[in-house]
């Protein structure tokens, strides 16, 4: 049984890296919904998936339980996650790792800037990328191919 305070548990869960975007923590990504005390005194961590089919949910659950042994992890769908919940720190880290961060929703029909040279002259290569949450773009100026975190 975990004896940590809810604040400690929240901080530990928020610091767990996302398995598919390990430069981001669950806190950065905005998928940590809540940390609550269960009726039996234990701790429950509530998370939400980015996309319905996110295959990382099982790994995330196990990672949380590794840093917080004994906690239960519950997944909720409502309200649906949106990229607006990615923190400013999360956006900064994405850009630092060459992934163009999402714009604020609802998005204007502007292409994302190249994360390498900051050029706005980019083109869509494919609406889907290595994970559901990303699209593939390329820069017309420096030619860098890059992932863009889709507005969602």
């Amino acid at each position, binding site marked *: 049984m975990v004896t940590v305070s809810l604040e400690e548990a929240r901080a530990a869960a928020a610091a767990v890296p996302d398995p598919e975007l390990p430069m981001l923590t669950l806190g950065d990504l905005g998928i940590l919904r809540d940390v609550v005390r269960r009726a039996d005194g234990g701790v429950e961590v509530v998370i939400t998936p980015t*996309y319905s*089919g996110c295959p990382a949910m099982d790994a995330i659950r196990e990672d949380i339980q590794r840093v917080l042994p004994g906690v239960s992890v519950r997944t909720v769908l409502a309200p649906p996650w949106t990229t607006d919940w990615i923190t400013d720190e999360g956006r900064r880290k994405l850009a630092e790792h060459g992934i163009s961060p999402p714009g604020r929703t609802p998005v204007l029909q502007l292409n994302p800037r190249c994360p390498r040279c900051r050029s706005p002259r980019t083109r869509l290569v494919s*609406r889907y990328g290595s994970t*559901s949450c990303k699209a593939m773009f390329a820069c017309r100026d420096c030619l860098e191919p890059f992932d863009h975190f889709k507005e969602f």
Partner: protein
Amino acid sequence: MNSLETGDDCLVLAQRLAEWVTLAPTLEEDVALANLALDLLGQARALLAREGDEDALAYLRPPGQFRNCLLVEQPNGDFAHTVVRHLLFASYLYELYRAHPGDEVAAKGVKELAYHRDYARVWTLRLGLGTEESRRRTMAALEALWPFVDELFESRAELRGPWEQYVLATLAEASLAVPEGVEQRSGGRRGEHGPHLAALLAEMQALHREHSGATW
């Protein structure tokens, strides 16, 4: 929303789309089709879990107990078939989800389906306005799949208007004519499926049936 019908639609189409993996025309489309499949699989799991044990429902039911519409069980055919099938279906599922904002699967799924139908729309335009060959194949796909349109709206006639607005506008923009006088087929919602579903399920269920409880 009928969780069993929509859950089965999503499950069967996810399996169909997954058949493209390693076979799609380009690596980008391979990845895109797998992502479409994954979204639908996630929705299917959440919907079927409302009806009982998701594994038992997916892996142990015979074809006659599936309630998916006939459109989603149609074979992939060529890429044009897959694109047209997705245009017809994703536009329908988008409207169905949009009509259920209080349903948490629908509320989440509608955002995913907005991307799906946009993907299908852009490809429909590219194929319809592309070469003679791409246009010929897209028209053939439209003719082959149009008989399964009415079934989508069997119990949800009010969704047809907004669906037509999107689909017919896309087809017009792609300079593709809507097939006329096509005899419509139905029966999926009553468990009356064609031979394609049995073959799809035989493959999807084989591992589970042979090694019940197997894990990675």
